Every structure is written in C-alpha cells, then in structure tokens.
C-alpha cells in the first residue's frame, strides 16, 4: 500500500487559479479561495488512480457493442 497523502495538501493558489482560467472558469471572488482549496484536495488524491498496470493485463472494456449484437 502506498503511503497516505497528507489530509490537506498545501496548494499553490496561483497555479490552481491558472488551471481554472485555462478551462474558462473564473470563480467569483467571494468563493475563490474555498474553490481552490476544494480543488486542491481533489487533485491531491489523484495519485491513487495511477497504479502499476502491465500492458495486456486488462481487457479493453471502455466500449462494447454487446447490447446491440445479442
């Protein structure tokens, strides 16, 4: 099991604001800090999604025509 991430990872407010701007989003001033902190928590957990996955260890499963071919 990988080490646990910190509960509230420090975040770079300017970097997260820039990422939102790149997506066309400018949070209202009165909500901005909480928005960035919430996003930082989500981003801080994304490392859990990435695990060693040998090529060929999983089937292609994103798309199936099964329901139209039976």
């Amino acid at each position: 099991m990988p080490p646990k991430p910190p509960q509230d990872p420090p975040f770079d407010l300017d970097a997260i604001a820039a990422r939102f701007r790149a997506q066309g989003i400018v949070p209202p001033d009165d909500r901005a800090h909480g928005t960035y902190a919430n996003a930082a928590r989500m981003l801080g957990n994304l490392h859990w999604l990435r695990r060693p996955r040998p090529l060929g260890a999983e089937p292609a499963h994103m798309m199936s025509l099964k329901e139209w071919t039976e």
Partner: protein
Amino acid sequence: MSAHPADLTDLSIAEAGAALRSGTITSRTLTEASLKKIAALEPVVNAFVLPTIERALHDAEQADADFANGVDKGPMQGIPYALKDIFSTAGIRTTCHSNLLRDNIPAADCVVEAKLRAGGGVMLGKLGTFEFAIGGPSFDLFSPPARNPWNLEHTTSGSSSGSAAAVAAGMMRMAMGSDTGGSIRGPAAFCGTVGLKPTYGRVSRHGVYPLAFSLDHAGPLSRTVEDTAITMQVISGYDPLDPASADVPVPDFLSGLNAGISGIRVGYTRKFFIDNPSLTNEALTGLDGAAELLAKLGATVDEVDMPPFELFDACNRAILFAEAYAIHEETLKTRPHAYGRYAYQHLVSGALLSGADVVQAQRLRRELTAAVYNGPLASHDVLLAPNALMTAGRFDEMGPDAGKWSGILTGPFNVTGSPALALPIGFGANGLPLSAQIVGRPFAEALVLRVGAAFEAAAGVVAHRPTLPVLSKAA
C-alpha cells in the same frame, strides 16, 4: 376491530396495508396523520421543499375509492410517501433544491414516481436535498436545510437530507432518495433510518436529475427493513428508458425476509476501516457488536479484507466530479452565483480533471470491482461494512466553504455497484444514531434485506425514536 397505535404513522407499511384492506382505517385518516405530523414538525425539521397536501388528499381518496371497489394496486396502495426533490413529478415543482431550478415544473413523472403512483401510493410532497445532490447543508438557497430530528442542532448528512429527516421524524414510513457516493446511506446513518442503495441498474433513474450517470442509484429510506423490501417490490425492474437499467428478474423481496441467517457467511471488513482517522470508539464498538450479534443469530462471521479505502475514494470522486462537471459545465461558467456556495465549489472542481485522470479512474473502478467480487464477496455471502464512523456533526461546525468529505465509508459500493443497506446499530454517547452497511453481490438485495431484517429484529434499535419535545407534542 384491531387496535391501532394512537399515532397512525407508527404503523409499518405492512400493518397499514392490512388495516386498509380490512377497513379498520382509511387512507384518508392515515394520510391526515402524516399531514398533522408534518404541520407540527416541519417548522423546525425543514424536511420538505414542497408539501403537496391537496395531491396527497386526492391520492388518499382515490386509494380509498379503489379499496371500496375491490381494486388492489399493490402494497403501496393508500400508503403515504415522499420524494427527494430531484425526482421529477409531472406538474409539480422539481427544484433539486437549487435556485437555478426554483420554477422548474416537469411535464412527466420520473419512472419511480410513475410506479409508486400506479401502485396507488399517496404522495406527500418533495423533500429537501443537498443542492443538485452534492452541495450542502446550505443556508444560501431558497429553502433551509433539513435538521436532524434526533437533535436539531445537528446535520442530517446528505444528500437525501429531507428524506432521512422526514422518515426519522415519523412524517412517513418511506421516502425516496438517491445515492452517488453515499447520499442514501449517509443520511440514513445520521438520522437512524434504514436506507438501501440497490444494485446499479435495479431501479430506474429515468427522470431523476443526474449527479453522475455511472454512479447514481435511486433507492428508499424507511423506518424498517420490511418497509424497504415492500418499496423495492414496487419500484424495481427493467426500464428501457434508463441505459444502465438491468434486464434481470425482480425477486420476491418479502418471501424470505424473515427466514433467518443461519449458515449465512458474513465477511466483516474490520481491517478496511480500523486505521481510518475518523473512526470513533463508539462506532467501532457498535460495529464489533453487530458482528457478534450476527454470529449469535447463526451466521458465520469472520474478518475479510478489501483494497484500501483511499483507492475507492479517489476513484469515486474522480468519476463523480468529472461526470457532474460535464452536466453543469455551461451554467457553472455563465451563472456561478446561481448555485449555492457549497454546490458551486464542489461541482466546479471537476473542470481540473484531465482525460487521463478519468480513464485511470475507470480502469481502477474495474480493478476494484473485480477485487471485491472475486475476493470477499466470492468467499462470503454478504459483507458487514462500516457506514459513518461517527455520529452526526453540528451545524455550527460547518465552515464557510465546501469541506472535505471524510468518515462516511459508503463510496466503495457506488464504485462496485453493489447493493448496500444502511442499518441502525445503536447510538453514540450524544444520543445520535450509529449505522453499519450490509453489502451483497449484484442483484442480491433479497439476501441483504434478509440479513438486515434478522439483525433489526434482534437488535431492537428501531424501536427507539427521537425524543425531542416538539416530536412528543406532535404524536
């Protein structure tokens, strides 16, 4: 003539159904008992965003007329219920508890409502929710958040907040909720009700406003397991209008409900939560006690392991936020202040997920699902799992901004799509409820309910009701 409790809302759905069919009560009197309780309690509990009194009385009179004419539409005929306000209702406001949809009046019923209506149920109204089933409890919306009937200073959790509060307060025996990461089971835990997240695909979501398509489930919250089983009999089944709906037979959820659990193999996921920083001693004591009671009832109980919670949690949130953001993208950009503060802050975070993040989450979802069904749910019939690891928090502990979700371990079974039953197991030192989950293999709701019913009957927890002064006045 059989004797009935002074408060008819204490009748179970089965008891009320028997009384209605024997003619010892009418749906009108049963409905008026619910409406009386709502009138007394709603000013402090805030469970509803819209009571539908005229509709309820009309439904009740129709049910009574049907009974008089020998028409029996099934076990919900004449029984009051209510809907979380993300369930579309024809001609009746469906707001998602959001200022954005304050005037939204759908043209058609969602499929669940259509089934309850066709089954002769009595619709009492639309219940409060965290905004769009994600942001709350919020005080910056057109209607205040529901309060916990066990202690009005405490929250209900969410997002099916009004559903849990209404059932716990005794306004009705059953209310519909939805669950994307725990939105049936969390409120059920904090308010001391039963709550079932059925198997993904068991109950249609058509007409239920989505939070995240691939994680959303619709299901009931109720006073008892039997109430839930009866409801499931009415609302389950294949629906071609819901692309995720499963074309599988609907079993008889009631016939084996009281068959006991002798020989049932229960896997207790103790290692899964024992190191969780949110775990309280009283929750651990309650869960250990539940495991012991299940063993005393004849089940084989032993400890099983699951992949780390953090994996499920990251997977659940990445998919949830990505799908939710896709639904709300345009409005978040153009009308940010139309959302309450909490909903906005949660929903907009999905903008920062990359395509690779989402695909990695989907890959992980498949791996975790396989790990559960090939692991503990291959060697065991059901799992005993934690729900909330603490009792409900206080409103005055809520910060100004959307906080992190922690200590409610329900999301893993949205990831796996498993049927998961929230079951009251006791009370904390502050008098607020504690809860566990009984989790089964896909479409094994009948077994999950059977285990829940056996535990419920032996534990006696549901006999304890909120004792707020305002509640006793309303009885």
